[in-house]
């Protein structure tokens, strides 16, 4: 092997890489929050909603979980504008991420909700809590606690799959890498550094999720 690694060109572009990293963090965090909201609503609909609603939610989940994210992204970015919807690559990317995460997280949260013992809900009724209070305090919170590990690894998978949005040139870390690559031709060096940044991001997110767990869900279980 007679190849000299030249990382200078990569590190010279650190402001761009930093900006790209921040964009990926921002995009992922927004997608996580909105995706979680979608998932909570859908999980409620799937466990307590009327039958037609359940059917629609099921169709949504199956459709999203059985097609690749890249195709969903192309659909939102290329196909929907042909129906007259005008939006930027960034918005299309965020929407695709939210809809994708929503489907996976709905299934995870539903499993959590179904793990809540019936007696607990009856206890809520006996205490004369309102329906939405029961859902929020008696069902949702313990459900989130029960499925927290699965949910947080789904979130990290989402952060990693957000790299795919570079395929429509939404500005994220991988897009920055692709641009740098075409300017400097140091593709191997750039992708090594960027893969390293993603690895650090994955570790940082899992540390953050542990902190959130300790701060808000770390109460003793009575089982």
């Amino acid at each position, binding site marked *: 092997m007679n190849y000299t690694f030249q990382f200078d060109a990569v590190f010279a572009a650190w402001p761009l890489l930093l900006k790209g990293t921040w964009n990926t963090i921002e995009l992922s965090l927004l997608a996580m929050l909105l995706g979680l909201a979608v998932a909570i609503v859908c999980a409620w609909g799937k466990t307590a909603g009327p039958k037609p609603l359940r059917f629609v939610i099921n169709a949504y989940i199956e459709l999203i979980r059985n097609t690749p994210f*890249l195709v*969903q992204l192309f659909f939102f970015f290329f196909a929907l504008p042909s129906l007259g919807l005008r939006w930027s690559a960034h918005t299309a990317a965020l929407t695709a991420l939210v809809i994708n995460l929503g489907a996976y997280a709905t299934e995870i949260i539903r499993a959590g909700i179904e793990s809540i013992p019936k007696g607990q809900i009856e206890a809520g009724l006996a205490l004369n809590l309102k329906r939405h209070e029961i859902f929020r305090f008696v069902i949702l919170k313990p459900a989130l606690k029960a499925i927290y590990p699965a949910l947080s690894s789904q979130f990290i998978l989402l952060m990693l799959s*957000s790299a795919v949005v570079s395929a429509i040139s939404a500005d994220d870390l991988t897009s920055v890498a692709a641009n740098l690559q075409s300017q400097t031709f140091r593709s191997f060096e750039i992708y090594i550094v960027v893969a390293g940044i993603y*690895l650090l991001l994955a570790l940082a997110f899992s540390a953050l999720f542990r902190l959130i767990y300790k701060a808000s869900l770390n109460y003793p279980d009575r089982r």
Partner: protein
Amino acid sequence: MRTFGFPEFLFILEAAKWTVALSLIAFIGGAIGGLLVALGRTSENRLAQLAAGGFIQIFQGTPLLLQLFLVFFGAPVLGFDINPWVAAGVALILNSSAFLGEIWRGCIQAIPAGQVEAAHALSLSYVSRMRFVVLPQALKIALAPTVGYLVQIIKGTSLAAIIGFTEITRAGQIINNATFQPLMVFSVVAAIYFFLCWPLSLLAAYMERRQAAALAR
């Protein structure tokens, strides 16, 4: 300009065989790699544990797309002649090795410790212990999540389109560039993936239910 008709549909459908071929390569290679990773993670050898753990951390902690780029752009640097076929195959094998390895580690560890102790007491060697006691039982638990992971592999092959490998997604892009009917084209692309993946998802869910019922007995 071309319009989307039956020949265009056939072009995309035909590309499905490359998606299936790439998925099979990734699955078979990933199964071999994954078994090694799972055995490494569960072995008593510290070095094997660390190596397998590091491998999993790296491949589960970075995007599949970046792994694909690293193989595709890195191999020529290291002196290998490479085409999108090989790059996509190698990257997907490495990635599925990590994920299958982690799934199967869980299955191996789910086997009660008493079983392993009994095998020790019978003075079985490591190979016979794994081959006759642990792995056959782990296989039974592993079946449902493995079928489920197959769906992830099929969806993962779509990323090979980005490095120019003509599978379903790339075929869709090509047709879209010729017909400018993205709604039609990407609906068809999505539908083909759906009909590849959905039966597997249903099968995985069915196997999981059956297994849960068997355990409840």
